[in-house]
Structure formats: structure tokens, C-alpha cells
């Protein structure tokens, strides 16, 4: 990859191809948003405007839908997104203590990203692994039967990974249109 903008052109092109391939445009907004979030990682204003134009919808309508559904995010996630399950089974087995420990260790609250962009912290509801409650997910990897004391070690491992790959800088931002 030569520069950051090339990556974005590719991304917008991929989204456009997906939209062009739809059998009809009516009622497809949510599907397109899913696709876009999959491509870009999040849904910044520029991407929402692009989608509105491509589907012939007012930007306000796109924004209204993005805001309504908690799955959609307008903020980029960390390199290693962390989510803690706050479903009932995890909650009664102490998931809130895990969240508190993470907030303490990372110095951020739920919904935020660490200043170095390595971690983001979110909560979600029941991932269907209640037998392993409480459950924490880091970059897609599920950690079960968590205790607050286990958190530091796991975070430490990912910190090391982040440092190891920190040298090569890649463009994660969405800085321009395609």
C-alpha cells in the first residue's frame, strides 16, 4: 500500500460494488450499513453521506437509523476492541467487576478508546456462552470464567502485541472520499 488514500478508494469502491449488486434499493439501508461498517470498521459522517447519495436517501434518514441501532458506531474502535458481556448470566456472576477493573486499568470508561488507539471498551448483551460467565471478548477471542485479577494479565499480552506491531503504521482513518 503506497499511501493512506489508496486504501480508502478501495474501500469506497467495495461498498459501491456491493450497493450496485443489490436486486433493489428499497429497504436495504440496514444491510448496506452492516456492509459499510464491516469495510470501514465504523460509520463516520463521510461514509453515511456516501450511502445516502448511493441509495437516494436524505442523510438525516441514514443518520437516524445509525443512531437508533446500537450495533452501529460512529467512532472507530481500538486496535484490540474489548467487550464485556453484561447479559444477565454474566451480570449475576460479577461481570460489572470485570468492567470496573478494565476501566481502572485502561483509564477509560465504556464507549471510549485509549488515547494510543490500542484498546476500546464496550459492553454487550449475552454472547450465548453463559456457561463460561462472566465472559470478556478481546479482538474476537472469548475469555470465560473471568475474575478481576485475570484482567491485567490478558491486557498485558495485547499491549505487548501492540508494541510489537507498533512500528508499521497503517491508515485506519477515513480521511477522504473515493
Amino acid at each position, binding site marked *: 500500500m503506497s499511501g493512506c488514500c489508496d486504501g480508502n478508494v478501495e474501500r469506497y469502491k467495495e461498498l459501491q460494488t456491493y450497493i450496485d449488486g443489490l436486486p433493489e434499493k428499497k*429497504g*436495504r*439501508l*440496514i*444491510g448496506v*450499513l*452492516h456492509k459499510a461498517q464491516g469495510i470501514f470498521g465504523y460509520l463516520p459522517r463521510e461514509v453515511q453521506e456516501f450511502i445516502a447519495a448511493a441509495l437516494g436517501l436524505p442523510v438525516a434518514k441514514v443518520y*437516524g*437509523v445509525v443512531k*437508533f*441501532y*446500537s*450495533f*452501529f458506531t460512529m467512532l472507530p474502535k481500538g486496535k484490540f476492541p474489548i467487550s464485556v458481556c*453484561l*447479559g*444477565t*448470566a*454474566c*451480570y*449475576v*456472576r460479577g461481570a460489572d*467487576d470485570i468492567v*470496573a477493573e478494565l476501566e*481502572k486499568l485502561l483509564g477509560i470508561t465504556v464507549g471510549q478508546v485509549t488515547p494510543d488507539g490500542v484498546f476500546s471498551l464496550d459492553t*454487550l*448483551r*449475552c*454472547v*450465548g*456462552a*453463559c*456457561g*463460561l*460467565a462472566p*465472559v470478556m471478548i478481546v479482538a474476537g477471542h*472469548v475469555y*470465560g470464567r473471568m475474575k*478481576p*485479577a485475570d484482567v491485567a494479565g490478558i491486557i498485558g499480552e495485547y499491549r505487548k502485541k501492540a508494541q510489537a506491531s507498533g512500528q508499521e503504521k497503517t491508515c485506519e482513518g477515513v480521511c477522504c472520499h473515493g
Partner: protein
Amino acid sequence: MTNIKMHVLVCGGTGCTSSRSMEIVDALRAEIKAQGLADEVKVVIAGCFGFCEKGPIVKISPDNTFYVQVTPEDAKEIVAEHIVKGRKVSRLLYVDPKTTEHISDSKHMDFYKKQLRIALRNCGFIDPENIGEYIARDGYMALGKAIFEMSPKQVVDEVKKSGLRGRGGGGFPTGLKWEIAASYKADQKYVICNADEGDPGAFMDRSVLEGDPHSIIEAMAICGYAIGASKGVVYIRAEYPLAVERLQKAIVAARETGLLGNNILGSDFSFDIDMYYGAGAFVCGEETALIRSLQSERGEPTSKPPFPAESGFWGKPSNVNNVETFANIPVILLKGADWFASIGTAKSKGTKVFALAGKVNNVGLVEVPMGTTLREVIFDIGGGIRNGKKFKAAQTGGPSGGCLTEKFLDTPIDFDNLIAAGSMMGSGGMIVLDEDDCMVNVAKFYLGFTVEESCGKCTPCRVGNKRMLEMLEKISAGKATEKDLSRLRELATIIKDTSLCGLGQTAPNPVLSTLDNFYDEYLAHVRDKRCPAGKCKSLMQYVIDPAKCKGCTMCAKVCPAGAIAGKVKEPHVISQEKCVKCGACFATCKFGAISKR
């Protein structure tokens, strides 16, 4: 393919894959190949076996050996000992906690003995990604029977006669719903499968989709035939990637086999299914909100009537059913309505799947005949309460439900009995609570959930529930008075009566139910400023017992607030003013000198 003598089934459900079950699959396959047995022994990634507590599970057939808590490192021994030499690996067998005996066959485990699996009939038995295995277990026979031997009306009548009621929460008679949808004339009708499974802590729909996706496809097609619809739509949570993938593959396989698409099985009945993804809004489980969401709008409910059966997806007659409801349909057609109606209680027929979780020994998926008691589910199947603690309550119905206390342990579980007991069936989440759980806190948890998930369309729900939550917060902070308790009840009743949709109408239930059953506990918070379970942090104090404290100074070192003082080898003291109640000292003390009060 012809020489397969043995099947090794590995759980590919979400719980077990989180515990590396796919690595087990790879290790087993490699080992079997190394032993030159690849033609005789087949490793199958199956759906959830239900016994999630002891996952990852590996089951070997035909001898039905049931291995628990298997690791990838165990693969070598399983292959060398069991598969090659026919000797079971006893250290991986389930140990009965009562008799301490090793049990090799799942049929003899207490967890399975009282279960009757209809909706989960194939979960853990077949490879969900292989349509042939579904067909081999009578799959798509019910669809064939419906198309070639029954009229649409006969299908509706059979479902009506079975007494099946919706498993998504409402308990509406399914046959009647189909009859209404069939009665409308339209150029296009839709069959909608509600796979939004919003109850946090419930995972039965997900397991059916992951473990037996063809049963849903078959049932939707049968429904399409019965009501005169050629299109099916599944609304599925995007948070369930494995279920999405399996269902997608199953739809493609069904199309390729001629079981979906035009002229199914050569008949003149055509039916196909499309998938739509939810995006993390609980209210979209409500059928009118779901339909709005399918149309890519904000998922705000609309008032009924018109019901979806009259005007649903794109204004066309639509029949909405839950995943588990559909999973029962093929069996009803094959075994007959009379057989189905012979199971269960007078007004609740068949079985119900519960996602048993919380403070119970055997967390997992449990399917029992309607009319089974709570005691059987929690103590016989669930193995009782963890760590020898005392049972306090079982919460059913999720954020819309209530809690069932000890006095209801012997009540037969069915739709009507649970409502009479002040809770509801809901979709099947069952959370077991023990003496350490604070009921004010539990009510606060559920209400916090509904406040977050309220779509905001109507005021009682948007504002009222928020006020209730604030009152609960006041109670757990020890700042409330007895008058607040009566105001809480009053507000709850108003919200129930005036909200537009089921979310608002049922949101106060967890509060009312805990107020009814645990009023003393509320009073303790309000009057004595005390949380009997020690959960409400602002009412709790950490104290050091001077008799037990060795003066090791560990706690003072970990305390982030510098609240602990004391000299080496002398008893330490916690300053209650400075303490931030993080519990770090409690977790650190090796001498059990710190307690919560």
C-alpha cells in the same frame, strides 16, 4: 464414505467454540489421519449438546460415550485409546457429583434424564452444515407430506389441534395465527421468522439455528404452504455470526437440493427465504418494530391493529413466529397433533427449552415437557445451586418477567401457572439467583436494560422507566424513604397501563415482582440502610477482623484509595470515609480477615 464405523461429534456451539473446540476438531482429525483411520472414523462439528457447563463436549457414537471439558491436547489419547483400542478415557468422562461415579453414556446423566428433546431433537446429533444428515433423520419429510398429502387447511388444522403456542414470549396459539394469516387474500404474503432473541441471558434460538438450521427452513416452508406465502424472511441478530453463517449455508444447500425455490419437490408450490440482520435493538424483537426494521427504518413499534397478519412487511399479510415455535412444526406434522398434544399440561402442550444460567451448577440448554416443576429443572437437571449456597429465586421472562421464589419450586411450569405466580414464560431465559444476590440490584439490572432499550416513542416508557430506575438507584444508595417504595409501585402501574408496546408494558414487572416477593429486602435498604446480600456497594462496608488479621500489609498495598492503615504484624483498619469499595483488599487478604458487611 461407505466404511464409516464411528462418528466423533464435537460441539460447535458458541460456548464450546469459545473454549477452543475447533482446535479439538483439528487435533482429532490430524490424529485420526495419522492412525490411518480417516476412512472409518468421521469427525463431525455438531450443534450445541446443551451441557455448556462442562464444555467442550466430545461425543462418540455408536457407543454414546460423552466426554466433558476436553482440550485439544486430549485428542491424541482419545484416538489412541478409545478409537483404536476401544478403551474409554475415564478421566474425561462426566463424574456424577452425588455418587462420584464416572458416567460414560449421556442417557444416564441426571442432566439429560428428565429432558425430552423435540425442538432440540437434532442439536448435537447432526452436522448442521450437511443437509444429508438432516434428511437422514426424517428432515424435509414433513414438508413433503404437507405438499403432497395435505391441503393448506389441513396443515393449519393439524397445527391448531396440536395446541402449540408461540415460544417467543406471548404464547399465542400458533395454529390460530396461521389461520388468520391464511384468511387474508393478497398477491404476496410473507412468513417471518423472529430470530432476534433479545432476552439477555437466553440462547436457545441461537442454538437451534446453529445446531439444526434446516428444521427452521423446513418449518417456514410448511407455514408458507399453509398460509399461501411464497416468501420467507428471517430477522436474525447480527451479534450471532455463527448462526448467521450456518443458516446462510443451509438456505443455499436447500435451494441446491430443490427444497427451496420454484416448484419445490416438483410440486407447484414455490417458496424462498431471505435473511435480514438486526442491529442491536431489543425492541426490534417486538413484531411491529421488527417489521419496521426489516424495511430499514428505525425499529419503533406501531399500534395494533392492524396486526401483521393483516398488514405486515411492506403492508402485506405476514405471519411472525419465533425460532423455537418453528422448530416444533416438522415433528408435529410427522408424529401427529395428537402425539404432541399428549405432552404437557391442559393448556400448554409440548415442551419448552430453557436457557438455564446464573448460580446453578449445570448451566446449559434444557428442554422439558410443559408441566415439569422448577425444582426438577434447577435441582435435578441443573444440579442445584453452586458452591452449596441457598436458592433464592429463579428469574424467568427476562426484562419482561419476574422472579419465582421457593414457594413456587413445585409448581408445574406452563404459560398460565407462571403468570399466576407473578412471572411469565417469556422466551425461555431462566436465571437462578442465590442468597448472595440482592433483589433490588436485580430489579435495577433489568430496568437499566429496558431504559437503555426503550425506543423513546412514547412518554410513559421513555420517561417513566427512567424515573423508576432513578428511584431504585436511590434505594440502593440508602437515600430512599418508605414513601418512595409506594411511589415506585404507583409509577410501575401507570407505566404498565399506558405504554404503547410490550416493552414498556412489561418493563415494570421485575420491579413489581421483587417488591411483592422481597419487600423486606427493600425495607432493609430503606429503613436500616443495609443491603442484606452485601451487593449494593454504597451500603456495604469492608471491615477487618482484628482477631484474624496477621498484619501482613498486603491489603494496604493494594488499596487504591490509601484507606487502610496499620503497622506490620499489627491488625489493620479500614477508614470507611476513604474506602471506595473496590474490593481489592477483600480479594487480596490470604487470611480471610476482611469481610463485607
